[in-house]
């Protein structure tokens, strides 16, 4: 666990943990509001946003891509609302129409423009490249205190750290309004809480998390993080505070175990190469959820499905 670990594994694991937590936190409220699939929609539309940003600026650089992705998420949400109202279409179908079309548009743009030489390919967009976010300028644990080495940190790390911290802070600060409006929107309105704005802000925060995590774990895996750790936590407890805390725990476990299994698992089986870390993280979170579905204390829906 020496220099090699710090160089090759520390940063990917940290980035994985941060990405998972950033998504799991808003995910708690999304699943309680039955809006889990807005995460599905956002993850799909991130692709065209990034491609457009690339085409406009000509470079593969962080800020334009973030803005492009955020812009795409915004456009998607607006389109979904418009279609729901103008067409009187139910939310799930409206989401399906918008994000599949936008995603197809993104793929078309990608193929049309000559992006093959740059690392902007669809596979990467789908499942990221966590294993490559290494810290070559480190040579041991002491590098954590070495300013020059720290300068060589993969930029995804401080970025995700900032985003996760921000999301954590927002969750803490707005805990009560979130809890009230998620549980009983009408009551929240009666209290004078800006319920529409809170709902919108929640989706916006989810989009920010998705965009920030995108580079590390790709768009589709982000959905796993929005849903699986919070869902597993939900089955474990009846208290929102405990649920959110557990979701963070499960997200962290998924990230660490997932990365380790992806990196070292094949070696244990006699293989040589690592497998997709992002895919493995999603799989582990799924296994945790499966265990929760089978054994968690508050999992069951006994009797008929509600009056």
């Amino acid at each position, binding site marked *: 666990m020496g220099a090699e670990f710090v160089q090759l594994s520390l940063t990917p694991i940290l980035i994985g943990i941060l990405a998972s937590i950033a998504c799991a936190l808003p995910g708690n409220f999304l699943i309680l509001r039955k809006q889990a699939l807005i995460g599905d929609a956002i993850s799909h539309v991130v692709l065209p946003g990034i491609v457009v940003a690339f085409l406009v600026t000509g470079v593969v650089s962080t800020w334009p891509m973030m803005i492009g992705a955020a812009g795409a998420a915004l456009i998607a949400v607006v389109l979904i609302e418009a279609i729901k109202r103008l067409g009187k279409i139910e939310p799930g179908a409206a989401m399906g129409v918008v994000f599949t079309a936008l995603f197809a548009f993104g793929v078309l743009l990608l193929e049309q423009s000559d992006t093959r030489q740059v690392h902007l390919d669809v596979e990467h967009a789908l499942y990221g490249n966590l294993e490559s976010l290494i810290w070559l300028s480190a040579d041991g644990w002491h590098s954590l205190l070495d300013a020059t080495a720290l300068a060589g940190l993969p930029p995804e790390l401080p970025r995700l750290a900032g985003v996760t911290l921000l999301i954590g802070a927002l969750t803490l600060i707005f805990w009560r309004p979130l809890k009230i409006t998620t549980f009983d929107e009408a009551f929240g309105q009666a209290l004078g809480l800006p319920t529409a704005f809170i709902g919108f802000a929640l989706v916006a925060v989810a989009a920010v998390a998705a965009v920030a995590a995108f580079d590390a774990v790709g768009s589709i*895996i982000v959905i796993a993080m929005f849903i699986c750790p919070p869902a597993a936590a939900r089955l474990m407890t009846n208290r929102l505070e405990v649920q959110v805390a557990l979701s963070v725990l499960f997200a962290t476990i998924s990230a660490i175990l997932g990365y380790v299994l992806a990196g070292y698992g094949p070696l244990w089986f006699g293989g040589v190469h690592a497998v997709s870390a992002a895919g493995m993280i*999603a799989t582990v979170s799924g296994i945790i959820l499966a265990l929760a579905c089978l054994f968690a204390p508050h999992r*069951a829906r006994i009797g008929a499905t509600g009056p």
Partner: protein
Amino acid sequence: MPDAFLAALMLQAGYNAALVAIGAGLLGFAAGASGTFLFLRKRALVSDAVAHATLPGVGIAFMVMVWLGGDGRNLVGLLVGSAITAGIGLVLVEWIARRTRLAEDAAIGAVLSVFFGFGIVLLTIIQTMPRGRQAGLEGFLLGSTAGMLFVDAIIIAVGGALAVATVYLFRRPMTLVAFDPGFATSLGVNVRSIDLLMMGLVMAVTVIGLKLVGLILIVALLIIPPVTARFWTERTAHVIWIAGALGGIAGYTGAALSASAPNLPTGPLIVLIAFGLFVASLMFAPGRGVAAAIIRHRRFQLRVHRRQGLLALARGEQIFDGLTLKVLRRAGLIRPDRVATEAGIAQAAKVSRDESRWEIARQVYRDEAISGRYDGLTSIEEVLTQDEIAELDRHLGPPSIIARTP
């Protein structure tokens, strides 16, 4: 380019292009028809979960076939594998939604992402496998039309035909379940089986479309055409076949367009054409479209003026509004000197009686649907039944005479 497109449309652009076009057309038709019921049942995004759940099956099938010594890329084998894991995913979505306290959307998202993640893990394993040629499995994500074989088209044609036949066969119980599952149960319909059948159809279409458009884009063909078809009809049976037709058109033209120019991938193009048809329908469908709504609003304005004018005539009031006068004159209800004609008097009396009936109706009916229909225009005969109107008339008494001049 337009020549190339036309040639492709006429199936003159080469064997591969023709095959792809026909295959895509058939696939689009099957997808549109099969996806309709999940849409009506408000479970459109289950298609997304089912589609993503095919990926691990493809990977496992490949590895099994290679392990058994064969060529891992045998299409039928891969599709069988995809169907198995998609089926498992489907059952899991249903199980999670029914047996745990998680809602259906969480179940869909969980299955979608976890199965897909695991599938990606398998893909990366396969990419490093020394045995068997693994190139081409990524093609199942977004589809690939290069080197489409006749057998591929046959799979689509036969699979699609079976799916469509099943839709036709079970259209009645599926409509019952989609509309009112409680009532369906009371008739003895096994709602759970029918639900699984609806999802199974979607799964079948996904599997046969895996090679051509890929698992991520097939969802578009399962959702967009039914949503589009909804704008054109109020009858479930028609929604099914219009959705099929729209899907077929999108598939066929998309494939033709893609063949006529380089760098135009087939899958995305088909989806974008389907989306284009959707937007066109959203805007221009008569009845439910936006343009129709705007035209209705304009006509509504004119009718309001007509009605207000007639009411004024009935009450003996002066009419000042220019547009009202114009509307009444054009309809022959008043003379140029603003005196009512015979027709005008008759109409005014009718409108006046209608207005009185509405007054009573709005007091009697607390119902949004009735009192909400009062827009100063709709005649009460369009909203209430004969016996309901007779009830109102009892309160009103006989009709009264209208004065001839104000």
